[in-house]
Each structure stands twice: as C-alpha cells, then as structure tokens.
C-alpha cells in the first residue's frame, strides 16, 4: 500500500465518522420532538445482492405508533459511487417514500466525499408533516 492509498483510506474513514456524527446528532434533535417516542440510528456496512454496501438510517418511532425513517444507501463499483437518500414512512407492508433526493453517481473519490456529506446533510434536513 502506498502513502497515497493510506491517505485515501484515512480520508474515507474520516468522512464516515462525520456521516455517523450527522446521523447521531440529528437523532438527538429529532428525539426531542414531542411526537417522537424513540430514535435509533446507525451507519453500517451490510451485504446486498450486488456486494457490500454502506447504509445509514435514522428511525423515529412516533407516539401514534407510526415511524419515520431517514435512509441513506451507498453502493460502489470500480467506476463510480452511487448515493441514494430519502425520507420514508413505515407501514405493515414496508416503507412509503415521502421525499427522495436525486440519486447521484459520482466518479471521482474527492467528489464522492464532499457529495456524501452534502447529501446526508440534505437528507437529515428533510421533515415530514407528521412532525409539524
């Protein structure tokens, strides 16, 4: 591994730490809302049918028994990184999207880091009428 590779690895881990902080801080903020009974958040790697992926969520359980979820998915290939983000409401049959940010496909690593932080900030700024 070259010094350059190590720098990239450190930068990526630093960005993931920032993303984790954003989800955690927003969970505290959303959790203070008087309609919210509980929040759960995580940024984690999981298996998908197309390989590993990064997923982040902030789930807010509301006192009326429904739930809101701020959802982030990042998948990658040798050529690009793809970031999907949306706010959804959960029902017995699964999620219903309330708002979705435009999916972004990024080819350069430096742009990926900046885009990921920007998209996560935009995602966590989304609000549902259920929290009015």
């Amino acid at each position: 591994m070259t010094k350059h590779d190590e720098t990239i690895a450190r930068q990526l881990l630093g960005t993931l730490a920032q993303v984790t902080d954003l989800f955690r801080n927003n969970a505290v903020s959303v959790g203070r809302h008087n309609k919210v009974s509980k929040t759960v958040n995580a940024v984690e790697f999981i298996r998908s049918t197309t390989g590993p992926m990064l997923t982040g969520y902030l789930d807010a359980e509301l006192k009326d028994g429904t739930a809101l979820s701020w959802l982030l998915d990042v998948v990658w290939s040798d050529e690009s990184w793809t970031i999907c983000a949306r706010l959804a409401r959960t029902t017995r049959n699964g999620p219903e999207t309330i708002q979705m940010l435009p999916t972004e496909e990024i080819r350069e690593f430096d742009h990926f880091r900046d885009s990921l932080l920007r998209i996560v900030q935009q995602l966590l700024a989304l609000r549902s009428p259920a929290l009015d």
Partner: protein
Amino acid sequence: MAALASGLGFSIYRNGGSNPANLTIRKGQADLSFRNSLSDPIGPDTQPVFTDDQYIGVDASRLPEGTVVLDDDPPGHVSVTATPGQLKNANLTKGKFPKPPPSVP
C-alpha cells in the same frame, strides 16, 4: 395456515430496507408482512407488495420457531413476529430491483 419449521434453510422477503423501523411490528398490527418469493400476489382483491425499489431477504430457518407462519393470505404471504434483532441476525440480505427500461414514446 402453516407454521414454518426451523432448519429448512429458505428465504423470505419483505418490501424495503433493513432499518429497525421496517423490522418492527407497528402498533395495532399483529405481525410483519413477508413473502415466500420475490413476487407480487396475483388475483382479485390483491395489490402489489413490492412497491419500493428495495427489499430484504432473511433466512427463515434462522428465526425462532413459531415466529414465521405461511398463512398464504394472499397466496405466498408469510406473517412474521420475530424481533428486529432476530431478523437482523437471520442472514439478512438487502436487494434492489432493477430499474424498468425507459419507455419509448
């Protein structure tokens, strides 16, 4: 209605992602809806199930006995009462449906 025995090693599928809210039984509901295949039910009075572009699959044989019931209502429907933690530990995999081809004008 059939309780699915543990140890058979088969997957069941649910609309959406792996976040705990999607794995939690909602207030007023008795269970979570899964299906025994990646297909929507067909027939009168049925509606598409996989309305999201994502789904999760879990290995039903890794869930506690009695928490997975193939009730076939509608056909292929599986009712699950496992906890989010149990579902996450059941070899959970996330998948995404391919995008439909662009329509030709």
